[in-house]
């Protein structure tokens, strides 16, 4: 990881990241104690990081030298199909990159490719999930504006997370993804369909055999992952339910306000107070609408991300188990077979190394992920709480 701090002449680049919704999670819906809005200047954004984050996050913010943004979705029409291309802009001072700035166009499939490459090369690292291919309910067409925007934000988050990762951000595949004008040629290289099939088959075989003994810490991790998955899914469901109830509440509010206005029409002395209440109810409606929007744009995506993360974690645990299982299988074979011991021994040693590497990688990444999760969800919840406070403040001031 490079030890460079953010150079001063970065300010121009960072200002463009105003489009970055995620950074604005920290600044958008909060205000300082004296009531003035958060400034959006880069140095103060960095200061904001300092004020709010832990030591570890400080390091990331100060030493982050790879900035990626995803924007500008555009419809791309060919003879065969229609799809969306996103603009991916990279700014970096890293020496591995020939230039300090890149701009390419990528489609969702390209992101999928990148992620699967990363997972293949680092089977026990926690690679941030991508937004889902399809949305289960309520989606009529793939090119609905909201859907595209939600996806764009999630893709941005994905690259953000990768760029912050001490190991993944140095991946060759990432570099190619960020810099190559034409990705299709690169996509055809590398381990193909068959090798992936092979791994799946081995995985199934191993899981059937079962593990000899999983190290305690990974069992603990496994249990945590199960529980976490349940809990985060529940929180997600509750949040969706809240949004649903809020929407229905909003619908009724919209009918309620006018009853006062209509009544005011046949009164003289009561005209004022009736109109007053009507106005307040209207204000309430507006604020409720905003509240719903905030929930949908801040809390729901954050929770959803971690629902997907939970699945990623489960996959990571499985892969780690498989690696260990493979090693154990060969180890057993070694013990039973007399012939070809040398060659087998080498293989076994190799696998043993692999196991150790995998375990260490996971261990290292685990606490990193936990902190990241904590930070992300904490900020999402705080933002929600603040928004709710703001809602009540605005409504009561009108009354």
């Amino acid at each position, binding site marked *: 990881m490079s030890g460079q701090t953010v150079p001063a002449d970065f300010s121009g680049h960072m200002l463009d990241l105003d489009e970055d919704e995620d950074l604005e999670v920290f600044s958008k819906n909060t205000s300082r104690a004296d009531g003035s809005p958060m400034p959006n200047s880069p140095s103060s954004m960095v200061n904001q990081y300092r004020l709010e984050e832990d030591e570890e996050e400080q390091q990331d913010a100060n030493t982050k030298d790879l900035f990626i943004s995803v924007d500008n979705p555009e419809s791309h029409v060919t003879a065969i199909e229609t799809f969306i291309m996103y603009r991916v802009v990279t700014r970096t001072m890293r020496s591995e990159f020939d230039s300090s700035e890149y701009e390419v166009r990528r489609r969702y499939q390209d992101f999928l490719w990148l992620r699967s490459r990363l997972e293949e090369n680092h089977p026990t690292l926690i690679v941030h999930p991508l937004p889902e291919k399809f949305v289960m309910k309520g989606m009529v067409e793939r090119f609905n504006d909201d859907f595209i925007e939600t996806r764009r934000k999630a893709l941005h988050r994905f690259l953000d997370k990768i760029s912050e990762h001490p190991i993944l951000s140095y991946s060759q595949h990432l570099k190619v993804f960020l810099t190559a004008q034409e990705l299709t040629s690169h996509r055809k290289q590398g381990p193909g369909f068959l090798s992936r099939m092979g791994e799946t088959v081995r995985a199934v075989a191993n899981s059937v055999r079962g593990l000899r003994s999983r190290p305690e810490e990974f069992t603990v991790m496994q249990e*945590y992952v199960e*529980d*976490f998955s349940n*809990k*985060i899914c*529940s*929180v997600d469901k*509750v949040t969706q*339910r*809240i949004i649903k*109830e*809020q929407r*229905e*509440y909003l*619908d*009724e*509010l919209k*009918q*309620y306000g006018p*009853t*006062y206005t*209509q*009544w005011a029409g*046949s009164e003289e*002395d*009561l005209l004022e*107070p*009736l109109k*007053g*209440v009507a106005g*307040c109810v209207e204000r309430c409606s507006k604020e409720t609408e905003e509240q719903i929007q905030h929930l949908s744009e801040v809390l729901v995506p954050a929770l959803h991300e971690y629902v997907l993360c939970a699945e990623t974690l489960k996959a990571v645990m499985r892969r780690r188990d498989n690696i260990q299982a493979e090693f154990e299988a060969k180890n057993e074979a070694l013990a039973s077979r007399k012939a070809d011991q040398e060659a087998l021994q080498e293989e076994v040693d190799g696998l043993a190394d692999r196991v150790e590497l995998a375990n260490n990688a996971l261990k290292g990444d685990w606490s990193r992920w936990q902190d990241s999760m*904590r930070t992300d*969800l*904490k900020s999402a*919840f*705080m933002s929600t*709480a*603040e928004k*709710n*406070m703001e*809602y*009540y*403040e605005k*409504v*009561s001031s009108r*009354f």
Partner: protein
Amino acid sequence: MAEDGKEESVATDDESDHTAADGTGSLNNTMVEEGSTLLRRMEICVAEAEKRSGKNAVNMQETFTVYLIETRPMDAVVEGRNPAPDALWRRYSEFELLRNYLIVTYPYIVVPPLPEKRAEFVWHKLSADNMDPDFVERRRVGLENFLLRVASHPVLSNDQILYHFLTEEHGWKEVVYETGFQAKADSRLRALSATFRVRNPDKRFMEMKHYSDELQSHTSQLLRARARVADRLYGVYKVHGNYGRVFSEWSAIEKEMGDGLQSAGHHMDAYAASIDDILEEEEHYADQMKEYLFYAEALRAVCRKHELTQFELEMASQDLISKKQQREELATGIVRTFSFKGMTNKLFGQEAPEQREARLKLLEELIAEGEETVKEKTLECEEHVEKAWVDMQRFKEQKDKDLREALINYAVMQISMCKKGIQVWGNAKECFLKM
């Protein structure tokens, strides 16, 4: 809204007395001068409610609720003495009987309404059961309010039957029936017919009637919409309770996040629970609106009575005119309008002079009667218009004052709800910060 709460003091009555004094003018001065409304002389409250069972008219077992009415002479209260109140039990049907009596006996008064017989505009959690304790409690308050309104009315408060209602537990029903008020009640059919056929009703009354329709429609729409909003709001708050449960479970598996999550969960539980009190308070606002929803009907009844008296006057006048015409025909022999008698005369020849004389004499009698009737009806109509107009003005002032207050209170309630919300989410935010 008539003064809530159980104890009444003299001071609160001043306003209604003043309006009465201003409004009544020269009319019924004796009533105002004689004293003050009943409420000034007597402290009234509906203190309790109890379940009873007994046999009803068809000898079947039924359960019903009775309400305890307590009264105390006001001078005793003012002097600081605290005598035990006189008390008696009444059930809802007796209140209804009293009100029906008042409506028939004072058709020019906008008679205060009773609380609803059955729970309407019910939202989700609120029970529609008449035996539900919350409903009974709200009804108790409503009945007390009814009595206070009646007892502070410049005209109604002087009624003897009312006084007996408050002071004599037994035999009251018989006394009411003995007044024969039921016979005086206008038949619905007559009233409806009058509405359609009356030709020259007082314009002001027609406007009032139109207004009463509007008032009824608007308040009922408001109440319906409010109930639905309350329902939804209840849902929003209660779902947050699920956060409480999930956060609590989640906190068990987290190390650093655990404490923050768990405390936040508690605040979410508090938030979910807070809606119960909030909506309970709002029910009082709804009750205030309901009172005026029902008042609208009382107002309309007064207007309808005017239509009826006016119509009867018109009918009587019409009858008199036609009789006078008949007399003229008979006297002069000239037929102005078509009549069977005229036709038969032409066909079969005129009748004998003696018969004519007899008929003329009868007609004169009928005309004399008719003129009396017209005089009566005119008086009746005019009296009703005068008195009713006075009371409708009084009602208007009362309505404006009460509803203004109710709306302001509603706003205050909303502000207080928001403040609670700010507090809860502020606390939650602190917990999230610690995550």
